[in-house]
C-alpha cells in the first residue's frame, strides 16, 4: 500500500468543513487575557512633534500603552537590515506606520482607545511613486548591475531593435485570516506565542531581541494559518513583538489581532515594478541581446526586497535562452509600507518583463507570439542551456510541455476561430495567449535550504510528527504525513502532525520559496528512516535475516514468513530498549550562490508549466472576462495530485487577480498623501467564483524530477501563479484586435476595465 502519490484530502479538511479547525483567534483564552490594538501614523513622512497619549491611557479598560522608548531590547523587526522599527520613534516613514500600542480588557476597548491619541507631525517631503523615487535616486538598497555577454553590442548589431516600458502593480495578500499573535507569559521569564506565521524561528529571534532576552526564553507555535502567501513570512514578527512586549509589561496574556483595514494598511504587499527593456532580434523573433531596467517599489525599508529583486533578476529569462543580457535592478525607497514576500517573490515581475518584451517583438514582426516564445526556448544542452546567472538548465521540458498543451487545447485552430470572430464583432473582441513558466526552486540564500524534523513512535505504533515547516493551507502537513506513513507502511491516519513549535524543532527556515515539502519532507523521511532501520535490525536479528529482508507494508512488519502488527512490534522494541523516536535533517545539495556577483547555481531544479487563456473584452467599457483556461503543470512525480492541482488552480486564479482586478490605490496629494485607499475588501477586489473560467482544464505534466528530490516530486506552491501571465497577454491580444494588427498597445497591469479602455483609446489615437 502506497500513500505517496495518492490524492488524499487535506489533513484538516474534516475540521475545516465543520468549523473545528482552530486558528489562533479560536483558542480558548486564559483568564486575564488582554487585547491589543495599534496606533498608526497619519502622515507619510514626518517628524513626530507631539505624541500625546493621555486620553489613551486614561480610557477605561486600558492597562498598558507602549511606545518605542518602552522597548527594553532592540526596536527592530527588519529581517535582514535593521531598518524597520517595531514602533516608530520620532520619525514616521509611511502613512499607517505603527506608532504605539495599547493593551485593554477587550478588543473593542483597545480599538477605541488608540483613536484618542493626539499626534502632530512636522511633515517631510514624501516620495510616493516611481517618478519621484527614480528622480531622487531614492534606494533602500544600492542598484545592482549584472550582465552576460555583450548585450549592447548584440542589440546594436541585430537586424531589428525595439524598446518599451511595462508596468505591473503590487498585490495585497488578502489571507482570509489576518495577522494575529497571542503572547502568554510563563514562569521564570519565558513566553509562549501562538502565531499565524510562516517563520516561527525568525519571530522567536525578533521577539527575544525586542524583549532583551535569549531565544530559549521564547517558544513560538503555529498549528495552521488561514492563508499566508508570503505575507506572514517576515511581516508577522512585528505583531508578535508588540504582543510579547505588552505581555512582558503587564504580566498577562496579550492577543493582538489586527482589524482587516489596519492589516491592509500596515503590512507590506507584492512589489510593483516599472520595467524598461530593449531588445535586438532577427526576423523570426530570435533574441540576440536584451537589456532590462527593473525598478521596484520597495516601500520605506529593505525587508526582503534584496532577495525579491534578486529573484526577479533570476527570472527575466523565464523559459528563454538569453545569449546576451544586461540588467540594472533599482530598489526604490518610497514612503509607503515596506513591500515583502508574495508567492513568486519577484519571479512573477521578472517574467512579466520578458513576456512583455517577447509579446512586443512578436507584434512588431506580426508573428504569432507563441511561435516567438517557442523559438527562444532553452535548448536541451550543451548549446542554449545556460542561464544568464551561469546555471546549467539540465531539466528543460518547456518545449515538450508547451507543444503538448498547444495541441491539447487546440491553440492554432482557436486562434483562427478567434480572428474570424473578431472580424465580424465590432464591440466584443476576443484574445488568446499561451505562455510558459520556468521557476527556480530553492531559496536564493543557500543557508535557508535546510530543515529538521522530529518523529516519535509510541509503543502502540501511533506516530507523532513534527517538522519545521508551517501549514498555511498548501497541504504541507498532508504531504509530510504521507511521506512518513509511507516509510512505516502505515495508513496516514496512524500518523498525527502537531503544531510547528520552535521548542521541538529549532532553527527552522521560513516556509517559503515553495520549498516546504522539498525540505521538511526529506528531513521527516530521514528521521523516520532512522527509526525504521532500528526496527528492521531488531526484527532481522530475531528472524535471522538481513535487515533488507524486513518490509513495512499495510501496517504490518514482515520478515520472511512472519508478519507482525506495527504496534505490537513497537511495544516489543520498547521493551528491548530500542529508541523509537528520532530527528532528521536535510540540506539541499549542489546549490551555491554568489550574492555579490549574482552568479552560481541558486536553484536545485526548475519547475515548469504553461497555460493557455482565452478572454473577451468589451471595447465600450473595458470590461473583460476569462472564458477558458487550460493549464498543464509539472509537479514532477506528484506526492499528492489533488493538492498539487489545488495549488495550480489556486495560484492561477490568484495570479489572475494580480493582473486584472486587484488594484492598489494611494492618495496622491494633500495632507493625507500616501494613504492607502484600497484598505478593505470593499475596495480591493480579489477574484470571486464568477471569475473562474467556465471552461477550466488543469492537468499534471507527466514528469519525474531529474534531481533526487523527495520522491522525485517538484515544488508547486509558487510556480503556478505565473501561469496567469497567459490571461494578461490574452487581454493584450484582445486589445490588439480592437486597435489593429500593427499595434503594440501599452496595457498596464492590473488590466482593470479602465486600464483596458485606456489602452484601446491610446492605441487608436496612435494608429
Amino acid at each position, binding site marked *: 500500500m502506497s500513500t505517496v502519490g495518492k490524492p488524499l*484530502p*487535506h489533513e484538516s*479538511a474534516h475540521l*475545516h*468543513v*465543520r*468549523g473545528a479547525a*482552530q486558528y489562533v*483567534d479560536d483558542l480558548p483564552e486564559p483568564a486575564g487575557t488582554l487585547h491589543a490594538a495599534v496606533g498608526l501614523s497619519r502622515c507619510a513622512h514626518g517628524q513626530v512633534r507631539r505624541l500625546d497619549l493621555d486620553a489613551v491611557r486614561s480610557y477605561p479598560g486600558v492597562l498598558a500603552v507602549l511606545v518605542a522608548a518602552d522597548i527594553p531590547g532592540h526596536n527592530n523587526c527588519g529581517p535582514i537590515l535593521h531598518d524597520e522599527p517595531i514602533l516608530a520613534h520620532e520619525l514616521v516613514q509611511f502613512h499607517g506606520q505603527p506608532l504605539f500600542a495599547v493593551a485593554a480588557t477587550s478588543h473593542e476597548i483597545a*480599538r477605541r482607545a488608540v*483613536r484618542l491619541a493626539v499626534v502632530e507631525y512636522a511633515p517631510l517631503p514624501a516620495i510616493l511613486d516611481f517618478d519621484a523615487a527614480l528622480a531622487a535616486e531614492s534606494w533602500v538598497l544600492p542598484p545592482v548591475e549584472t550582465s552576460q555577454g555583450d548585450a549592447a553590442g548584440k542589440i546594436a548589431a541585430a537586424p531589428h531593435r525595439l524598446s518599451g516600458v511595462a508596468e505591473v502593480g503590487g498585490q495585497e495578500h*488578502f489571507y*482570509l*485570516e489576518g495577522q494575529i499573535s497571542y503572547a502568554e507569559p510563563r514562569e521564570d521569564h519565558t513566553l509562549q506565542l501562538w502565531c499565524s506565521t510562516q517563520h516561527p524561528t525568525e519571530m522567536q529571534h525578533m521577539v527575544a531581541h525586542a524583549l532583551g532576552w535569549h531565544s530559549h526564553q521564547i517558544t513560538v507555535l503555529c498549528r*495552521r494559518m*488561514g*492563508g499566508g502567501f508570503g505575507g506572514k513570512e517576515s511581516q508577522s514578527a512585528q505583531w508578535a513583538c508588540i504582543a510579547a512586549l505588552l505581555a512582558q509589561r503587564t504580566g498577562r496574556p496579550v492577543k493582538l489581532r489586527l*482589524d*482587516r*483595514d489596519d492589516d491592509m494598511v500596515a503590512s507590506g504587499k507584492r512589489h510593483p515594478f516599472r520595467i524598461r527593456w530593449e531588445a535586438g532580434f532577427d526576423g523570426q523573433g530570435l533574441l540576440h541581446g536584451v537589456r532590462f531596467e527593473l525598478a521596484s517599489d520597495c516601500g520605506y525599508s529593505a525587508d526582503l526586497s534584496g532577495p525579491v529583486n534578486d529573484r526577479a533578476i533570476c527570472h527575466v529569462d523565464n523559459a528563454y535562452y538569453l545569449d546576451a543580457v544586461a540588467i540594472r535592478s533599482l530598489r526604490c525607497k518610497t514612503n509607503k509600507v515596506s513591500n515583502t514576500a508574495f508567492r513568486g517573490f519577484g519571479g512573477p515581475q521578472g517574467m512579466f518583463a520578458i513576456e512583455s518584451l517577447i509579446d512586443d517583438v512578436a507584434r512588431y514582426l506580426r508573428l504569432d507570439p507563441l511561435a516567438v516564445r517557442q523559438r527562444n526556448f532553452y535548448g536541451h544542452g550543451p548549446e542554449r542551456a545556460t542561464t544568464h546567472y551561469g546555471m546549467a538548465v539540465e531539466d528543460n521540458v518547456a518545449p515538450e510541455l508547451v507543444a503538448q498543451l498547444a495541441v491539447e487545447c487546440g491553440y492554432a485552430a*482557436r486562434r483562427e476561430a478567434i480572428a474570424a470572430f473578431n472580424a465580424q464583432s465590432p*464591440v*466584443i473582441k476576443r484574445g488568446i495567449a499561451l505562455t510558459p513558466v520556468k521557476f527556480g526552486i530553492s531559496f536564493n540564500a543557500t543557508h535557508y535550504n535546510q530543515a529538521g524534523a522530529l518523529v516519535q513512535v509510541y509503543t502502540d505504533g501511533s506516530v507523532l510528527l513534527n517538522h519545521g515547516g508551517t501549514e498555511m493551507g498548501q497541504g504541507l502537513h498532508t504531504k509530510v504525513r504521507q511521506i512518513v506513513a509511507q516509510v512505516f507502511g502505515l495508513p496516514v491516519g496512524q500518523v498525527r502532525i502537531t503544531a510547528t513549535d520552535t521548542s521541538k524543532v529549532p532553527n527552522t527556515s521560513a516556509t517559503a520559496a515553495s520549498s516546504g515539502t522539498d525540505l521538511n519532507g526529506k528531513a521527516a523521511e530521514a528521521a523516520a528512516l532512522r527509526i525504521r532501520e532500528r526496527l528492521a535490525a531488531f526484527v532481522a536479528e530475531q528472524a535471522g535475516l538481513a535487515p533488507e529482508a524486513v518490509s513495512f507494508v499495510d501496517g504490518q512488519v514482515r520478515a520472511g514468513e512472519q508478519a507482525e502488527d506495527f504496534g505490537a512490534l513497537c511495544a516489543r522494541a520498547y521493551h528491548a530498549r530500542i529508541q523509537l523516536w528520532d530527528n532528521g535533517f536535510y540540506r539541499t545539495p549542489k546549490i551555491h550562490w554568489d550574492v555579490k556577483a549574482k552568479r552560481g547555481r541558486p536553484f536545485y531544479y526548475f519547475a515548469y508549466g504553461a497555460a493557455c487563456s*482565452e478572454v*473577451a473584452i*468589451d471595447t*465600450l467599457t*473595458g*470590461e*473583460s*472576462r476569462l*472564458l477558458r483556461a487550460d493549464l498543464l503543470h509539472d509537479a514532477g512525480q506528484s506526492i499528492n495530485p489533488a493538492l498539487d492541482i*489545488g495549488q495550480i*488552480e*489556486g495560484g492561477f*486564479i*490568484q495570479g489572475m487577480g494580480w493582473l486584472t*482586478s486587484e*488594484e492598489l490605490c494611494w492618495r496622491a496629494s494633500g495632507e493625507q498623501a500616501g494613504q492607502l*485607499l*484600497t484598505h*478593505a*475588501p*470593499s*475596495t480591493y*477586489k*480579489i*477574484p*470571486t*467564483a*464568477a*471569475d*473562474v473560467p*467556465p*471552461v*477550466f482544464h488543469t492537468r499534471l505534466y507527466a514528469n519525474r524530477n531529474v534531481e533526487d528530490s523527495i520522491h522525485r516530486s517538484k515544488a508547486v506552491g509558487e510556480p503556478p501563479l505565473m501561469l496567469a501571465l497567459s490571461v494578461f497577454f490574452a487581454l493584450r491580444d484582445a486589445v490588439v484586435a480592437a486597435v489593429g494588427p500593427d499595434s503594440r498597445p501599452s496595457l498596464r497591469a492590473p488590466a482593470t*476595465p*479602465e486600464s483596458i*479602455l485606456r489602452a484601446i*483609446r491610446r492605441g487608436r489615437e496612435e494608429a
Partner: protein
Amino acid sequence: MSERPIHFYYRNVLHRIDGVPPTRTVLQHLREDLHCTGSKEGCAEGDCGACTVVLGELQDGVVRLRAINSCIQFLPSLDGKALYTVEDLTEGEALHPVQTAMVDCHASQCGFCTPGFVMSLWAMYEQHPEWPGRDVAIDACSGNLCRCTGYRPILDAAEAAYQHPPRRLERAALVDKLQALAELPALQYLAQGQHFFAPRSVAELARLRLAYPAARLLAGSTDVGLWVTKQLRELGDLIYLGQVAELRQIRRDARGLEIGAAVPLSDAFEALCQQEPHWLDLARRFASVPMRNAGTLGGNVANGSPIGDSMPALIALSATLSLQCGEAIRSLPLEDFYLGYQQTALQPGEFLRAIHVPTPSPGRVFRSYKLSKRYEQDISAVCAAFALTLDTQGKISEARVAFGGMAAIPRRAPRCEAVLLGQAWNETTLRAAQAALHEDYLPLSDMRASADYRQQAAAGLLERYWRETTQPSSITALWSLTAVEVAP
C-alpha cells in the same frame, strides 16, 4: 411595547439575551460570548463571507432560510428567528452532504473561509431540493471570498453534495417554535442606555419615529453595521424596520408594483424582474447573496449614496416614493428625493414607507448596466439606466437616462435626454446624445475609476444600450459569451 430580552433559537435552544449593547454583532456574540468559533471574522464589513450564517425566518407560515453576514448584523435583529452556524450541520460525527462534498472535492486549503462557504452552500441546498445548476451555485457563493482554491473545487462540491443521500432540515417543529416567538410582544430592548425598537406595524413605527426623533432607522444594517465595526460610532437609539409588516409587503396592481421599504433586496429584485426582465443583469451583480438577503431596497434608496445601484434604474423607470410622517403620507418622485451628497428630502419624523414602480408603458425599452472592477460584489464605478419610449414612427417620445457614480447623487442626464427626445433612435442621435452626456456630469476621480474613465464609459454604455436595442447582433454581453469551439 414592554421591555423584554431578545429571543432567538440557536442549536435548538431558545436564547434569551439581555444586557448586551444593541449594536453587539451576531458574530461577536457567537465567538466571544458563546465561544462558538466556527464562524470567522475576515473583514468585519460583510465583504468576505467568512462569517456567513443562515437565518431561519417565518414568512407567511413558511420557514425561509437565508445566508447573511453575521459580522455586521446586530444581535437584536435575530429576535424571533432561528440562527444556524457551521456548528449546526454535523450530526454527531456525521458530516452534512455539503461538508462531505467539500472534503471529497478538496474544496478547502487554509480552511478559514470554509465555514462561510459551507453555510452559503447549505442555504442553497435547503432552498433547492434538486441541483439548481452551476450559475446558481456561483451566485450562492457571491458573498464568499476564497484566496486559496480558485473556487473550482468549491463549485464542484456544491454539485457533489446532491449526489449524497439527502439530509434536510426538519422544519415542522421549527415553524411551531417561531410561531410561539411571534406571539411575544414586539421587541423593545434597552441595554446600556440604548434602545432597540422593533415595531411590528407601520402605525407603531410612525409613533416611535415621532417619539424618538433622534433614533436611527435600521433596516438590513449592511451599511450601518460598518459604522459600528469600522468607524466605532455610537448609534444611539435604534428603530428596526425588519419586523414592520406593512413595510415587508410587495403589492402588485394595474398601476404597478409597490415594494415596502423593508423588503429585502432578494425579494425586491425578484418582483422587479417579473415586472421588467431587464433588471436581471443588475440584480445579479448587486452586492452578494447575503447582502441582498439582509439589505433592503428601501435602505438602498433612503441611504442615498451616490453609488447606490438601484436608484438609476428606479429613476429611469419613474419610481415614486411614499414618505410617511405620523399618519400623513406623501408621494415624491425618486428623482426629487436627492438634494445633495447624502442629503435627502426626508423630513424630521418622516420615513420611507414604500417604493412604487409604475407598470411599463408600451414601447418603453429599459436597460441598466453596472461597471466595476469585479463582476460580483463590487461597488459601481458607473451605474447606468436607460428607458426610452419609442412611438409608432420609431421616434423617441420619452427619454429617461439616469446614472450613479457620475455625480454627488444618483440623477438624470437632462442634456442627453433633451438631445434624444423627438429623434429617431439611430446612430446620429446616439453620437449626439453621447456628446451631450459629457455636459451632464462632472464625475470625480477615486479608487474605483478616474473621472475620465467614468465619462468615457458612460458614453460607452449608452452605445451598448443603442446596440442592444437596435442591432443586437452587434454585441453580446460578456457574461453570456462562451469560449470559441473548434473541431478537435
